[in-house]
């Protein structure tokens, strides 16, 4: 299994990279960490004419805390984000999801933006972006534009990035000070591919009433989905058993999860509710821990 021949480019700046994208259009692929792209090249599922490596564009490797959130550049490695106290402070759901990606050696090289731009329907970070309404900065020869998470993910390995464009950065809105977040998933083995995964981000007021509930899932569609019905039920409650149960019951209500080798559609719908419960229980436990401190 070896890739087909390609032309290799190693631009040193974003401008150079964008120029190259302009030159090749749909015949080029951006190479960052390569953890998803290179397997597809090795299998020859993708045979692009050119690879444009952004691994030498130092200006794209940053994590920036801004007043309204966290900005993660195209070359920020997942391991770096995972270890960052800034990420933990501003965006706890991202911190919670990162350790679920592959193994350490994948996260050492894989990038946050790369995972999002690849848009594998089982990628944990897509659920984070969806839950938090992340904003995507896309750059191309025609200039820059922004896309919301809902606009960004179009389907299995498909985003709104056009030929000649690339993802420059992703912006995660700042979470409230009292936010707690959890990511849970079921898979066939620890750190194997997820079957279904759920991210939960919860912000409560001083007496434990849910002010903000954000839930999203992977593995139940060709894109990450927001579990809006469950969110609505929980909003304004304290996550009492009855509300929690109802929220879990309706989690899969509008969904028709694709069955696969490891799990059929009915199993996925069922386990989705279980995962919503686990994720919410974990956020509650984290909140109580924080309060006790």
């Amino acid at each position, binding site marked *: 299994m070896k890739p087909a021949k390609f*032309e290799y480019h190693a631009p040193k700046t974003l401008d150079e990279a964008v120029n190259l994208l302009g030159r090749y259009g749909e015949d080029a692929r951006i190479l960052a960490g390569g953890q998803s792209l290179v397997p597809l090249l090795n299998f020859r599922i993708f045979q692009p004419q050119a*690879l444009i490596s952004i691994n030498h564009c130092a200006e794209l490797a940053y994590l920036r805390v801004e007043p309204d959130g966290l900005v993660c550049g195209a070359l920020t490695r997942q*391991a770096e984000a995972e270890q960052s106290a800034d990420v933990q402070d501003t965006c706890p759901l991202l911190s919670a999801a990162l350790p679920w990606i592959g193994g350490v050696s994948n996260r050492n090289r894989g990038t946050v933006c790369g995972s999002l731009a690849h848009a594998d329907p089982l990628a944990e970070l897509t659920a984070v972006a969806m839950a938090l309404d992340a904003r995507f900065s896309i750059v191309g020869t025609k200039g820059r534009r922004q896309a919301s998470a809902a606009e960004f993910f179009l389907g299995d390995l498909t985003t709104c990035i056009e030929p000649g464009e690339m993802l420059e950065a992703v912006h995660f809105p700042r979470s409230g000070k009292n936010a707690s977040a959890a990511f849970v998933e079921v898979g066939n083995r620890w750190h194997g591919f997820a079957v279904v995964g759920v991210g939960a981000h919860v912000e409560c007021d001083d007496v434990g009433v849910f002010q903000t509930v954000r839930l999203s899932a992977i593995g139940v569609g060709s894109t990450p989905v927001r579990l809006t019905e469950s969110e609505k039920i929980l909003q304004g409650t304290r996550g009492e058993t009855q509300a929690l149960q109802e929220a879990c019951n309706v989690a899969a209500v509008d969904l028709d999860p694709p069955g696969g080798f490891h799990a059929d559609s009915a199993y996925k719908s069922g386990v989705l509710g279980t995962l919503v419960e686990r994720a919410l229980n974990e956020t509650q436990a984290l909140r109580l821990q924080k309060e006790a401190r």
Partner: protein
Amino acid sequence: MSSIETTTVELVVNGKRYKRQIEPRLLLADFLRHEIGLKGTHIGCAHGVCGACTVQIDDKTARSCLHFAIDVQNSEIKTVESLATPEKLHPIQQAFHESHALQCGFCTPGILMTTEEFLRGNPNPDDDEIRKALCNNMCRCTGYVNIVKAVGLAATSMSAAENE
């Protein structure tokens, strides 16, 4: 830089600089094995799942089957050959030897390089942490019991050596 046919690259592997004419599509794993003859790095699945080809890029583990040699020219690559000296095994290798932690040995180089990084960050791990650290390195012979034992033993012997 643009090229499709062969081009000259320079890589630093285990502290030594190598200059070779290669195609851009040459994977780091194949560069190590076939261009410079370091055959300790094994290729199992060639798509980043099995962990046999794990090396370190700038002291961090990476799958050498998922990187192109041309793309890691400015990094320091370390392979399993960096661990031992002709006289002495690395404490991790010694622990694997003593614990009978390998059978066919195909996965071992990747597991050793993963363990080296892991113990640098966590010199005193418990069995659960060890299992999680090795969860992306497949071994089809041992059932992992002796591997987990070996990593624990390596941690103990390395900490003891540190405190001497």
